[in-house]
């Protein structure tokens, strides 16, 4: 299976020998000047059209199959291009083509393979849904050694020995690099890779329920791998060591060998994705990097022993068609994204929301993107240095942590946040946006005390919900940056009702003065406690009711204060809250077995559809019974029936009515305390343009623009060093020698010489 063709590899020039000596010479000079500046970059670096940012967590997985976290998405979404994307400015979020010619309408077939004429048929009538995607011609990949071919047309870097690449830090260091046009086959490969058991894609289990034949494909791959391993074990005999064997002689899975009805490639630019049921949300999935193209050349290139040893892999060195490519990847220091010279024509959106024009977000309408040539990111583990660098102008944008909120933000009489004068005088802008995120306190519905569906048990949960006043939490911990949740749906998602009519009547009221929701009074919670059988928080046996909070965040200072707060709130009902802190694996085990009582959960929208939140309480998604995301193990047949009807509908008034009914059931049963939806604050320096928060996609760096001249001027103005304390210190040191000198003088005078 392995191609062991040897090719002569041209070597790159080694670092110039004179450089080091010159460095040393300049070092002395530099040492003198060094203390004069607090600029963390090289001279002149900020004068270029580059973006300077910080990252706090080193990314570990950049393979579009397995990347799952926000900080990983923020990097690879600049590099990979799925067929569709979201409109940068329009809200509600609108799906538009990216590499595709258009967003296609699905074609539905019934159980007999006949095409259904109705564009929105009921779910149970659909047996197959097909999306035929045609990609734009002329899109090319970044330059990469995997595309480099010898005179015979064969890949140049096949069977490369380790010592030929030992000196390279990245694939960009290979002397020969090339590009090629994007093909439909690349998309097909990536969708097949989702089924590779070795990659363990986090979305495989979800997607295999929809994409036709994905699970069977995964089984086929597993079989192929087992067969190959068995063959090798037999050949190698007792010395077989799978780990070493696959490092030295990696298994090259022939991804296209098994039949896979889920994807059909028609020609170089067209492919069809087939689903086994109606699932309109798939168009949102097609905006995510899980559906980005991966060239087979890259897979072959990286599946070589030398590359594996050097950690050249798709996990660290992506190969994409996007506006940027990964130039430097030192996950514990620096990540640099550089503009991809092969990037296809792409323009800044020409239309947006009405307020966007006033905000200057349409100034660049129709211009070719990207504007920024490079994004430089340095690791900043602590929030404090990062914030100070932002204030000094060395980072272009920043979030607002709780600790600096009062320094940065003032709240007007109307309750509206504005910048503090010190920020405003620097020309900094404030951009706010409600995150499509839900935080909730989960009750284990399988628990005897907090779970169950009896009216008394519901009342206990409601009493706890009222006592946990998340408006107070938001005041203490987040400076009021959040909206009290009235159910699982955050604002901005279809089905959410703003204002008084969206109130959760069991727990909250509408405060007309401050125009926001507020918890009902504590007296009501006390009454509910009595009705639930716990007057003054006493159990029938007379002891105080003791509840247990399960978590795995023992080392987190923020969590410590948070827990103290929760405990204090429940104390007002006479409830004793104790924690059961365990490590993460034990905690997960407890959740899998339903062996916990109270815990907390959160959900970030994968895509802007209510189904993505309401499925957290769908019975067949139960954690204990089915291993699904319904961690509270909530089961309500009425709710489940409504969910199945709502799931694949279009956003119609009928769907709204179903959602209203579902929300009412959830609010009544209260399987969770609906905490809040956070509001994110972004501060941007005056030289950074075109910043609009986007909750669904991170491929927005290409729209940003900076004014480097202004940046350099301001950085200089804001960072004048202060010298006098040093002078004062020196003077103090000199003064302190006086007593010593006096003693010496006296001693010399007294001593007989």
């Amino acid at each position: 299976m392995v191609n062991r063709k040897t090719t002569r590899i041209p070597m790159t020039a080694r670092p110039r020998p004179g450089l080091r000596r010159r460095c040393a010479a300049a070092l002395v000079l530099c040492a003198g000047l060094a203390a004069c500046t607090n600029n963390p970059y090289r001279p002149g670096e900020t004068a270029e059209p580059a973006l300077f940012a910080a990252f706090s967590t080193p990314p570990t997985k950049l393979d579009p199959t397995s990347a799952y976290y926000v900080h990983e998405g923020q990097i690879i979404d600049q590099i990979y291009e799925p067929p569709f994307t979201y409109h940068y400015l329009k809200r509600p979020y609108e799906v538009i083509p990216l590499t595709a010619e258009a967003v296609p309408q699905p074609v539905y077939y019934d159980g007999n393979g006949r095409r259904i004429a109705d564009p929105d048929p009921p779910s149970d009538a659909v047996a197959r849904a097909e999306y035929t995607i045609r990609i734009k011609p002329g899109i090319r990949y970044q330059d990469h050694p995997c595309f480099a071919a010898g005179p015979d047309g064969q890949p140049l870097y096949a069977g490369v020995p380790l010592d030929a690449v030992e000196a390279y830090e990245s694939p960009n260091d290979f002397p020969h690099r090339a590009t090629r046009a994007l093909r439909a086959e690349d998309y097909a490969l990536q969708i097949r890779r989702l089924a590779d058991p070795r990659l363990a894609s986090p979305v495989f289990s979800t997607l295999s329920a929809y994409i036709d034949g994905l699970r069977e494909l995964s089984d086929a791959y597993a079989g192929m791998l087992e067969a190959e391993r068995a063959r090798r074990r037999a050949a190698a005999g007792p010395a077989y060591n799978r780990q070493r064997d696959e490092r030295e002689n990696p298994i090259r899975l022939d991804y296209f060998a098994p039949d896979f009805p889920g994807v059909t490639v028609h020609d170089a630019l067209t492919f069809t994705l087939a689903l086994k049921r109606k699932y309109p949300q798939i168009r949102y999935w097609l905006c995510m990097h899980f559906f980005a193209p991966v060239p087979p050349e890259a897979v072959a290139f990286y599946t070589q022993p030398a590359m594996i040893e050097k950690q050249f892999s798709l996990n660290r060195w992506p190969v994409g068609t996007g506006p940027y490519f990964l130039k430097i990847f030192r996950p514990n220091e620096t990540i640099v994204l550089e503009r991809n010279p092969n990037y296809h024509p792409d323009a800044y959106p020409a239309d947006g929301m009405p307020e966007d024009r006033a905000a200057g977000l349409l100034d660049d309408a129709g211009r070719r993107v990207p504007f920024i040539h490079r994004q430089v990111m340095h690791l900043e583990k602590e929030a404090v240095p990062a914030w100070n660098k932002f204030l000094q102008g060395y980072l272009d944008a920043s979030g607002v942590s709780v600790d600096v909120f009062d320094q940065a933000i003032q709240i007007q009489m109307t309750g509206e946040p504005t910048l503090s004068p010190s920020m405003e005088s620097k020309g900094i802008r404030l951009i706010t946006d409600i995150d499509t995120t839900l935080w909730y306190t989960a009750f284990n519905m399988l628990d005897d005390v907090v779970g169950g569906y009896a009216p008394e048990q519901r009342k206990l949960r409601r009493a706890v919900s009222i006592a946990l006043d998340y408006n107070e939490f938001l005041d203490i911990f987040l400076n009021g940056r959040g909206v009290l949740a009235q159910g699982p749906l955050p604002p901005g998602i279809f089905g959410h009702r703003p204002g008084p009519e969206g109130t959760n009547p069991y727990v909250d009221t509408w405060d007309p003065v401050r125009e926001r929701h507020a918890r009902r009074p504590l007296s009501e919670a006390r009454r509910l406690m009595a009705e639930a059988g716990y007057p003054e928080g006493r159990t029938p046996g007379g002891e105080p009711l003791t509840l247990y909070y399960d978590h795995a965040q023992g080392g987190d200072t923020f969590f410590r204060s948070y827990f103290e707060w929760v405990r204090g709130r429940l104390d007002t009902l006479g409830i004793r809250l104790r924690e059961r802190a365990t490590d993460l694996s034990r905690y997960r085990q407890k959740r899998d077995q339903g062996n916990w009582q109270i815990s907390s959960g959160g959900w970030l929208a994968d895509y802007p559809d209510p189904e993505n939140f309401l499925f957290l309480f769908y019975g067949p998604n139960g954690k204990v019974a089915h291993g699904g995301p319904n961690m509270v193990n909530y089961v309500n047949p009425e709710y489940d029936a409504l969910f199945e009807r709502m799931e694949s509908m279009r956003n119609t008034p009928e769907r709204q009515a179903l959602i209203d009914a579902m929300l009412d059931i959830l609010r009544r049963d209260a399987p969770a305390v609906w905490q809040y939806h956070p509001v994110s604050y972004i501060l941007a320096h005056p030289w950074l343009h075109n910043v609009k928060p986007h909750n669904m996609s991170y491929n927005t760096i290409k729209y940003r623009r900076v004014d480097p001249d202004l940046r350099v001027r301001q950085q200089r103005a804001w960072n004048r060093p202060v010298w006098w304390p040093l002078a004062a210190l020196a003077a103090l040191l000199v003064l302190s020698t006086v007593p010593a000198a006096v003693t010496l003088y006296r001693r010399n005078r007294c001593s007989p010489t």
Partner: protein
Amino acid sequence: MLAYLIRRVAYAVPILFGVNLLIFLLFFFVQSPDDMAETFLGEKRVTEEMKENWKREHGYHLPRLLNTVEPFPAVFTQTIFWQKSVPLFAFRFGKSDMDGSRIGAELKRRIPYSLCLTVPIFCISLLLYLFFAMIVAFYRATYLDTWALVVCVILMSISSMFYILGGQYLVAIHLKLAPVSGFDRNLLYAVKFLVLPVLIGIVANIGSGVRYYRTIFLEEINKDYIRTARAKGLGEGTVLFKHALKNAMFPILTNVVVSIPFLIMGMLLLENFFGIPGLGSYTIDAIHKQDFAVVRAMVFLGSFLYVAGLILVDVSYTLVDPRVRLT
């Protein structure tokens, strides 16, 4: 001399073996590979198969000491002990549990950064502390000595966290004289990042350093040969700086030389606060991420350097004092 060195090195082997055994017991008996797998796999969607895969990928699926299902050589070699602990002796540190990077390559890359920080701190503080200690010793039994000691004890009693926090706040944020944090791979540009941490590293230990060397000097000063020298009518300065310093070299060397190899290990707190990507911050990262492979490697490296330091001390004795003969 050579024979002695060989003997010392041979003596070091059982010590390193003991360290290795201790690490092995801690990491593979107290902690099971299953626990590790669960720590590492992400929050969402963990299956038994993924755990098994992870263990295989990192070589933790093998039996610990004896592989009974395998024939002869593999009985010993196909075990965690053989694959994970024995290679340490050859400085083959293996791969990180977290991201699969080669620990050896990572060490090689980071050691120079650590040295950039530790070597200046080491050299400057040694000279500075000796200088101050001699002055204090010179003024011994006067009120200057008393006050210097009080200041030393106060400086010693302040947590090192305070020096770092205070220094960063004052110099970098308030006076804007140095970058808040960061590093540059090019030494030329890295100097500005190093000034502040080096300064803090020197100041933080000044109390204990000065006090320690003062004790050594006073010990020497009370010896007979100093009294003789003074009786000869030599000035106090000459006595102190010429005679006492020379003879105090012996205990100073013991203390100083043994710590030279440790410069490689970097400074945990300073590197972490100032974002210097040396071995210190590597260690802290490994602890935070519970990267057992890296912690294992660092423990072994640390004890190796300690043993190396002890040998170095013996060698340096012969260089300072020709009367000492290593046989």
